């Protein structure tokens, strides 16, 4: 079985500035559960970076370019226990892992 992998990094500094400027517009491309995942954290901009990196990693797994707001919206991340994330896109399930340090959020997606 052929597997593909996508990895993406988002700079925390960039996410902090984006969150400060546009946090009222997040519902344009994030679902209610994604926004809840983000707001549960004391540092929501870090979770924002994770969500963006995760969605971009899914695109990369499928060799798709960034597909605009609706592309981001069509990838549904499903927050689970202990900060885990599942992902559904085009009827398929993808495995996601992520990590955050003070400079970057990194997400890795594996698809079959």
């Amino acid at each position, binding site marked *: 079985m052929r597997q593909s992998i996508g990895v993406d990094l*988002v700079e925390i500094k*960039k*996410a902090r500035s*984006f969150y400060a*400027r*546009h946090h009222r*517009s997040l519902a344009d*491309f994030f679902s209610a559960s994604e926004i809840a995942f983000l707001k549960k954290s004391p540092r929501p901009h870090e979770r924002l970076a994770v969500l*963006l990196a995760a*969605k*971009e990693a899914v695109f990369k797994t499928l*060799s*798709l*370019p*960034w*597909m*605009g*707001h*609706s*592309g*981001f*919206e069509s990838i549904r991340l499903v927050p689970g226990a202990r900060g885990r994330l599942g992902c559904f896109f085009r009827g398929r399930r993808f495995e996601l892992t992520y990590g955050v340090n003070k400079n970057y959020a990194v997400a890795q997606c594996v698809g079959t």
Partner: protein
Amino acid sequence: MINNGRQDIEKTIRSIIAQALKVDESKATLGSSLIKDLGAESIDFLDIVFRLEKSFKIKIPKGELFPEKLLTDARFVKDGRITGAGIEELKKSSPNGQWDEFSKNPLVSNLGNIFTVGMIVDYISEKLSTVNQ
């Protein structure tokens, strides 16, 4: 900011892009590719769209500025490549894109490289002319 001429629109957009991407405004020329030349990432595209909406007091509907709907249409994408029909469709919506260059290797994954400052200027100019009519 609604009744602008094309030059004012271009100036505003170049300034928005320069601020969003933290590059010198002189580098954000009409032919500059947002990804290849100016280093834009997906978070930057979102940032730019929101800044454009605020600055020009417009709403940019999903799928209008970036051709995301086209990518899910089987007539326009085959085996990871944009078809001839797809390229013609893209030319209609963004006549100033670097389509000749893109046509040499029309991989879907290369599509992001052709988003230029000029394409955004075209889109906003067209959008504002519709709003003002």
